């Protein structure tokens, strides 16, 4: 039965936290109340990506793109849109800045995107296997089981030139091939869903929006390498993704797409979920395997590589969520199709979680080779609040900053490496002029020091010591010798750490040192923080010519540092002031300045 309207409600974690689940329920309830329950189908989908504007509701066939929807809007969507056929202008994206968009594709945010990984996100109900199947789901598995040999599958990936999306960009076909060729009766397939970069949620959204794509890909891999068991290692902090995976696995088993004798092919394969406790280092493949085995999540020296000796000492393929999600599309459309997207160095697309001081934060998927400028300014809509762009950090705590001069760098594995950053798993954090670059470096180093497993000395001790030296800089207590020591430690960490966490931990420090030497110098020599972020280096003062003595700031000051008579200029006792900045925010006369 065809419905008059399909209403797609975003069921991603971000929109759900803005009550999209209530919107979904209200829409069903309203449709019933208004007697049109048989005319509309309300579907809860995965992430639309445009998280800045969430919760998002899309109504088909008109393709009306409603943003920042509230649960109470459900009534109007049913009465106006469904019953009367009138689009609700006030809910449409961009209605208050320009005329409503005719097509979703015309929205600037989506214009330069290409959805391969996220092809089904925001399109299908992830908890309904039929919708996945209707969108070519499990077609790739069928092809792999009945039409392709093991080598055909691997060869297709070779033609596609798919490189691992977890950060390092190792060719996926080679990983599979090594594992296929490794000796052993028992082999394993592992999905790394231990996403943990600050601000990154690409993998979570993929699993929430299209869990079957990962299950299907892992099963194809099982066929290709001769494995019969897969594990998905996912952090327990992703309850929605876990739930959707569980539903998907149950449905796949019911349909004979997982378990014994899949689709009558004689091939047995099943998948289990393993929950991680949230240690960032467990995203490192050898630590992840340790954790699955029930050990403390600590990286192991390589060799041996997992392809030879992985889970329980057996040959193991381990890929990350985004890598997996690409694979069914490659098998269905062919490796050549995939290779036609992107650059020579890097094929296909890449998903980024665009966050920070940007107008349109959200999940974006672009062809490799798209420039950073296009992502930040076209898709991201530029810097929020009219501030000036300062830098963008890719590769999370392992990457580095990219400045204005490199904004036209095409995004691919090689180009990012050349400018001292890296692809990473896809976190992209935009900074504006208010951000202090030393503070940013410290933020990332705080993170890696916190997340260091503590196994190897260079990372455990080096990270902590390096961070302490950075701390000295932000406190105005550092000298040039400290910077020399920082470089010395950074080298020891890069060369001596056991895993990528420690090897790359100094990158944010080194890249900020490289691109913003003057800002470091200001902290070290002038004892000043140009962005006014480092509390030890700034002081607040009241300009007596501007202060009218309204007392507003004095009343707000949490520590009573401001004094003065009514209607007379006030002053700040810098000995007492904790530099929280409340006074500056409070003052309506711009009388308070920070230096």
């Amino acid at each position, binding site marked *: 039965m065809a419905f008059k309207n399909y209403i797609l409600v975003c069921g991603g974690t971000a929109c759900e936290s803005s009550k999209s689940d209530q919107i979904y329920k209200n829409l069903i309830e309203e449709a019933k109340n208004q007697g049109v329950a048989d005319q509309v189908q309300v579907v809860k989908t995965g992430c639309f990506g445009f998280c800045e504007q969430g919760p998002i509701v899309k109504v088909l066939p008109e393709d009306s793109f409603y943003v920042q929807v509230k649960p109470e809007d459900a009534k109007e969507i049913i009465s106006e849109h469904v019953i009367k056929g009138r689009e609700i202008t006030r809910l449409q994206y961009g209605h208050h800045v320009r005329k409503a968009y005719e097509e979703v594709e015309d929205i600037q945010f989506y214009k330069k995107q290409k959805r391969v990984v996220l092809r089904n996100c925001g399109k299908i109900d992830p908890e309904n296997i039929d919708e996945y199947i209707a969108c070519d789901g499990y077609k790739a598995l069928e092809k792999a089981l009945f039409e392709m040999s093991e080598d055909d599958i691997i060869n297709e990936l070779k033609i596609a030139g798919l490189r691992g999306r977890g950060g390092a960009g190792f060719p996926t076909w080679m990983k599979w091939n090594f594992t296929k060729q490794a000796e052993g009766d028992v082999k394993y397939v592992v999905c790394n869903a231990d996403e943990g970069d600050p601000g990154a949620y690409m993998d979570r959204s993929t699993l929430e929006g299209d869990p079957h794509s990962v299950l299907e890909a892992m099963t194809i891999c099982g066929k290709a390498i001769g494995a019969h068991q897969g594990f998905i290692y996912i952090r327990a902090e992703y309850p929605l993704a876990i739930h959707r995976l569980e539903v998907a696995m149950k449905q796949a088993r019911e349909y004979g797409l997982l378990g014994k004798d899949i689709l009558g092919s004689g091939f047995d394969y099943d998948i289990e979920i393993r929950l991680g406790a949230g240690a960032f280092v467990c995203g490192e493949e050898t630590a992840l395997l340790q954790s699955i085995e029930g050990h*403390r999540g600590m990286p192991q*020296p390589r*060799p041996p590589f997992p392809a030879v000796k992985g889970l329980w000492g057996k040959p193991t393929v381990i890929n990350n969520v985004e890598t997996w999600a690409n694979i069914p599309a490659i098998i269905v459309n062919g490796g050549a199709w995939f290779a036609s997207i992107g650059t020579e160095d890097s094929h296909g697309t890449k998903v980024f979680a665009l966050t920070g001081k940007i107008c349109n934060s959200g999940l974006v998927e672009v062809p490799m080779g798209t420039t950073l400028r296009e992502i930040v300014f076209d898709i991201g809509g530029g810097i929020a609040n009219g501030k000036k762009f300062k830098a963008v950090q890719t590769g999370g705590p392992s990457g580095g900053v990219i400045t204005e001069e490199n904004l036209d760098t095409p995004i691919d594995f090689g180009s990012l490496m050349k400018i001292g950053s890296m692809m990473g798993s896809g976190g992209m954090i935009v900074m504006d002029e208010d951000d202090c670059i030393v503070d940013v470096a410290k933020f990332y180093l705080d993170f890696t020091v916190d997340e260091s497993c503590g196994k190897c000395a260079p990372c455990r*001790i080096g990270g902590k*010591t390096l961070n302490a030296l950075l701390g000295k800089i932000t406190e105005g207590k550092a000298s040039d010798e400290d910077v020399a*020591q920082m470089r010395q430690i950074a*080298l020891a960490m890069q060369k001596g750490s*056991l895993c990528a966490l420690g090897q790359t931990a100094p990158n944010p420090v080194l890249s900020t040192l490289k691109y913003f030497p003057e800002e470091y110098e200001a902290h070290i020599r002038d004892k000043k923080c140009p962005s006014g972020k480092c509390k030890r280096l700034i002081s607040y003062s009241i300009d007596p010519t501007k202060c009218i003595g309204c007392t507003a700031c004095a009343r707000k000051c949490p520590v009573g540092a401001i004094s003065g008579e009514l209607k007379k200029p006030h002053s700040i006792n810098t000995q007492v002031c904790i530099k929280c900045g409340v006074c500056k925010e409070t003052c309506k006369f711009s009388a308070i300045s920070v230096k």
Partner: protein
Amino acid sequence: MKIHLTINGIPVEVEAGTSVLEAARQAGIRIPTLCYHPDLKPFGSCGLCVCKQEGSAKILRACATPCAEGMKIITHDAELYEVRKTIIELTMSTHPTSCLTCVRNNKCELQKLAIEYGIREQPFKPRLRERVVDDSTHIITLDPYKCIKCGRCVQVCQELQGVYALEFIGRGDSTSMSPAANLPLNESPCIKCGQCITHCPVGAIYEQDDVSLMMKAINDPNKIVAVQMAPSVRVAIGEEFGLEPGEITTGKLYTALRRLGVDYVFDTNFGADLTIMEEASELVERIKDGGVLPQFTSCCPGWVNYVEEYYPELLDNLSSAKSPMMMQGAVTKTYWAEKLGIDPAKIYSVAIMPCTAKKDEIRRPMNASDYKDVDVVLTTRELGRIISQYGIDFKNLEESEVDSPIGEYTGAATIFGVTGGVMEAAVRSAYKFVTGSELDNVEVNAVRGMDEVKKGTVDFKGTPVRVAVIHGMANAKEILDEVRDAKLRGERAPYEFIEIMACRGGCIAGGGQPIGTDDEVRAKRTKGLYADDEKCTLRRSHENPSIIKIYDEYLEKPLSHKAHETLHTSYKAQKVYKDE
């Protein structure tokens, strides 16, 4: 298969599977390490063995990288030097510099590296934690304040010993080596084997020093101090004075102990001969009378702790014979005291052992006299220290003889210190007990060597006796499971006699032995004990005239009522976690 590579331009040929670290050593190039130990799997925590391949920026860890054909390895260059020096300095910034008061002063691997790299000051701000010492066992002291988190103790406890008493607790900078679940060590599964001590590169784990107890007794005119020393001590203590591992120093040891003021010098080897008489007879009896089989040896207190914790179902498989040390202590305070008319209350019984678990064993309620049969256990290391303190030039000491009548020993006794030795000694006598005739060749090669699990069948003139020998506690799991599972099914696993020693190589590599034990040292000490055996004219325990005499005069015959009272014990299940 041979692999060819160059290391710093030097052509090297090695066996396939050889690590770059080992290949470099063979080429005369030493790559520094702190976490690597040849007993253990490469762990990769210290970061010092970083190397490069020519033309590649990629760093590899020499400990974990197997050699490949055509490799061009660079082990030392300016950058690698910088990296290593920085890592040493960083490690030193979290390690106290109180070397002078450290038990491992002069035997510390970090100290050696600091010397080598000429580090004269600490460039990085020291960050030491509060010193909290865990001496809850009064045997093994954990001093995490000095720990450099190399992971050797954790690895040895978990992988070599299968005990899981030690673990890393906390993360990142707060990572610390600790008993499992952060319990005090005496509440953990620790079997007191002391392998953590001998594998620690610094002074973060050490034995409780009991030397003063012995010296107090020596200086007490009312005490008669009688001392015994285990077989393995004589082939290792020389290392503390610059002798080669394996050099037999029995006579020097006797002299040194007398110089320290000990009144009587006996030998645990006499106790070992006695143990064979009882244990072999027990085996024969079990086989003849349909008793519980297989019989397990019971002379290793680390193993006894382990079986009481992890396999309580198998306690009646353990030989009830006490260990040689406890037998020696028992006859010292009963038979010998009576014979000389000495009040056993006046005897202070000292045992010099290659083992820390022996310090634990003397707390067991198994005394034959009304006193502690053994009053104090000193490890080889502790004895080495006191010998130095008393200005005794051990290396050049004249030799002397053991005191009679509980000191003489046979070759069978002295091989108790190596894996397979107890089995071999038992076979030499059991053969006689069963068949009535002597074994032609006393050397039972099937139970010799470093294979982790050795199995064989000894033909007792038509009666096959199936034996197994295991060393390294973790290696016992498979056979113990097999024996237990069969037992729970009401069946019997296909063995008559199984020897188990907790430490790799046996007591010669015990937790109380000189620091620096690896397989090369084990081989030398083992060779020393086999040489000591060969030197003996009598190589079967039942041929020892002093043994024959003690049975005539006191014990009647093996397994007699008197023998049981004096020389046998029983076992009790232990909780794995003592606070449960």
